[in-house]
């Protein structure tokens, strides 16, 4: 059995770790609140723009934008992967990567190649060892990402789509259900899959200014950026809540360990005292 002093140092070190994890939990909790607010604040934009895209799908337009056309045979797909910059957030990133890898394997089985674009250090570190070609990288966004930061990354992938290098583009991120649940999600960006709108008929079209191509391009690019941005802010909210929960269970586990070790320590101490007493008694008896 370990000596009393050894156990005492062990208990002290676990208590130190516990202090750190509980501080991290509290930091994550307050950051989560802010991240959730940002996520909610950006929802009106992406909701409205999805609604307009829905209208657009019903418009009887002469001009068909390439992003809205069904692509022919798919030979290569692009995936924008959103992850966190930091670790210590439970299985958040790993779950996303695992479900993505499954999909990538499926694609490869069908002879479809995959190009990726990573946002966040974790995805970059993970995917550069998978042999997939990384087209663009974006890291160090912090807790409050700016819309501007995304433009370059999204443009790289859209340019590839325009040039016909990829025939499909998706974004993968963790969707924020609630504090306890984060769902790895893959959403197709182009070609677009528009939702249904009730009560809309097909016999009308917009007046486009300055012309259909310019107006539609401007709208569709914003739509794609809005979806990626929404994914990014949701992923940040997920990261913080996942970290909060991971740190909470770490703190609880540390508490359990300290309790167990204290029990062992007390037993060891008691055994030492008993031994000492019996030594004294037997010594006294010998005299």
């Amino acid at each position, binding site marked *: 059995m370990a000596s009393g002093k050894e156990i005492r140092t062990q208990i002290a070190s676990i208590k130190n770790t516990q202090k750190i994890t509980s501080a991290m939990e509290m930091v994550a909790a307050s950051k989560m609140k802010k991240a959730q607010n940002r996520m909610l604040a950006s929802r009106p934009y992406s909701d409205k*723009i999805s609604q307009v895209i829905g209208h657009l799908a019903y418009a009887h337009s002469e001009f068909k934008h390439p992003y809205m056309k069904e692509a022919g045979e798919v030979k290569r797909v692009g995936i924008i992967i959103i992850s966190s910059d930091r670790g210590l957030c439970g299985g958040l990133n790993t779950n996303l990567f695992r479900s993505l890898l499954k999909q990538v394997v499926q694609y490869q089985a069908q002879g479809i190649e995959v190009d990726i674009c990573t946002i966040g250090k974790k995805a970059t570190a993970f995917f550069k060892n998978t042999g997939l070609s*990384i087209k663009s990288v974006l890291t160090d966004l912090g807790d409050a990402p700016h*819309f501007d930061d995304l*433009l370059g*990354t999204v443009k790289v992938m859209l340019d590839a789509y325009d040039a016909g290098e990829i025939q499909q583009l998706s974004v993968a991120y963790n969707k924020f259900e609630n504090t306890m649940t984060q769902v790895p999600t893959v959403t197709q960006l182009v070609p677009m899959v528009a939702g249904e709108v009730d009560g809309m008929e097909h016999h009308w*079209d917009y*007046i486009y200014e300055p012309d259909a191509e310019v*107006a539609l391009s401007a709208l569709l690019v914003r739509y794609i950026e809005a979806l990626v941005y929404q994914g990014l802010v949701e992923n940040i909210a997920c990261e913080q809540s996942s970290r909060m929960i991971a740190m909470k269970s770490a703190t609880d586990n540390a508490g359990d360990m300290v309790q167990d070790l204290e029990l062992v320590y007390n037993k060891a101490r008691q055994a030492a005292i008993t031994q000492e007493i019996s030594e004294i008694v037997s010594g006294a008896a010998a005299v």
Partner: protein
Amino acid sequence: MTIHVDVVSATESLYSGAANCVFAPASTGELGIYPKHVALLSTLKPGEIRIETDKGIESIYVSGGIVEVQPDIVTIFSDTAIRAGDLDETKALEAKQRAEEAMSDAEGSQDISSTQAALAESMAQLQMISKMRGKKG
């Protein structure tokens, strides 16, 4: 008769409610939108959006964006990002460059997170070995 107006930017909702009419700086000229306007989709140039309601005139500045008009709804997407062809191009190039660095890094020097992963793996192996030894001894 009123028309419903939503003005949103990527980070917040700027205005949402009924209005008598809306004026927006479309790229081809100032646009006045009254209820039952024909469906229209236009880009915006920097300028002021005026929303006339019963309570008064609401004024919002936009640096560009898009306006969608349906007979009873006007949706205005305001840009928060500054867009310029050259600027976007530079950003795209930077993103590509970072990707190349990351890819070339894979063979050469490793970064902290992958080293951490390798470390965790060898730690687990060591733990396993010491457990096996404990069982034997």
